[in-house]
């Protein structure tokens, strides 16, 4: 199997032309990034707001719980059938728009719940001190709550990204491009090396992006919080929750 994958991947024909790896990789990243940015633009401010004010946390819980139970493939096929006939366009937009909607919907919960959990898990004494020293609400949010919530926010972004990368693979089934093409086409053509190579590419992509984000996180989060000094490991309930929230859906 490894030899088959190696042969497929080292065949230069698979790295050129409209069906080449670079094109599909670019498509895959494009679908994922668009969805992630839109989702972040919705989820992060909402999570900050709900966490800071403490109002509307039931929204977060409701969204997180209901979305987890929805099957991704069902959601994707449903939206394509629902929306595609109404888009009168040539090219991929017909399938791209419904797919992006699903990707955005799937990317929101992790970021929203983690941002909310991160903000609300800030030690009440710390928040009290910030207020008592005369910080305004916005100063408390940006200077104190956000920096302390960063580890959880990052893990939310990471699991959302993974979710989107994984689901973007499935969009090949509804006629889009991306690395998922090799999996779906390989299956149709009974071409296992192609399928397996595509699967390896997707897995490597997901892994690289996660490692990259982990590196950014390490750089962005204060050493005082990452506790590279901390003497004891404490199980933080919020972290526990965030870790559970990171379970794969796709």
């Amino acid at each position, binding site marked *: *199997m490894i030899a*088959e994958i190696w042969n497929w991947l080292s065949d230069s024909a698979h790295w050129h032309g409209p069906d080449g790896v670079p094109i599909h990789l670019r498509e895959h990243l494009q679908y994922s990034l668009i969805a992630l940015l839109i989702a972040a633009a919705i989820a992060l401010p909402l999570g900050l707001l709900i966490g800071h004010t403490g109002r509307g946390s039931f929204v977060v819980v409701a969204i997180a719980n209901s979305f*987890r*139970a*929805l*099957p*991704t*493939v*069902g*959601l*994707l*096929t*449903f939206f*394509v*059938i*629902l929306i595609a*006939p109404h888009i009168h366009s040539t090219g991929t937009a017909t399938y791209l728009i419904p797919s992006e909607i699903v990707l955005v919907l799937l990317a929101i919960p992790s970021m929203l719940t983690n941002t909310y959990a991160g903000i609300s898990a800030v030690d009440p004494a710390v928040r009290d001190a910030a207020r008592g020293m005369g910080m305004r609400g916005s100063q408390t949010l940006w200077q104190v709550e956000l920096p302390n919530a960063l580890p959880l926010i990052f893990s939310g972004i990471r699991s959302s990204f*993974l979710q989107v*990368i*994984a689901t973007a*693979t*499935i969009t090949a*089934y*509804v006629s889009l491009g991306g690395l*998922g093409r090799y*999996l*779906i086409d390989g*299956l149709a053509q009974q071409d*296992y090396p192609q*399928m*397996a190579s*595509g*699967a*390896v590419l*997707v*897995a490597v992509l*997901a*892994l690289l992006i*996660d490692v990259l984000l982990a590196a950014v996180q390490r750089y962005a989060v204060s050493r005082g919080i990452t506790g590279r000094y901390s003497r004891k*490991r404490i*199980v933080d309930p919020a972290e*526990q929750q965030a*870790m*559970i*929230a*990171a*379970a*794969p*859906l*796709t």
Partner: protein
Amino acid sequence: MIDYYRQNSDQINGWLGWHARLSALPLLFGLLIALPLGWLARRYRWLYPPVVTVAGLLYTIPSLALFILLPGLLKTRILDPTNVVVALTVYTVALLVRVVADALGSVSEDVLQAATAMGYRRLGRLLKVELPIAVPVIAAGLRVAAVSNVSLVSVAALIGVPELGQLFTNGFQLSYQTPILLGILLSVLLALAFDSVIQLVARVLTPWRRAVPR
């Protein structure tokens, strides 16, 4: 939707049954593997970081990719449901091993010392004290794994494994919403059923949590 179900009830019930089995078996296997593994990661501290890291890496593999890579590794056929069970077991273990390790670690030192002082040996203390106290957290992890498994199983329909995901692929090919909505509904109901069963079991196992503090 009800009409559609009536007309195809045999087939749909069959898919539902498969779906339930393909979601449940990995939960069972996953728990059986994660319990000792999580305990080890707790008992030997140096094991914790690598275990958590590997678990995190396994998470990053998209399910469709894993469904396709496993036949090559296990020498099974692509359509073999074993692939789905193994793949979901991998995810379940990846999720639960950290939950188990952290849950066991969250039992307070006072309780542990008291148990030791009363003469529990290591195994007795684990089974009679630490595990029961860790049940609620482990159950929370299991519930997440269960709901996520139910959703993941339907991905396997793309490679032709018979389960509720077939309703999605069929509906998509026919541009017909009804089977898709029915599939989503049944899938959500199945997830809810798993969720309720786990909650119920956890409740039975932890009678002290129902005691109202006065």
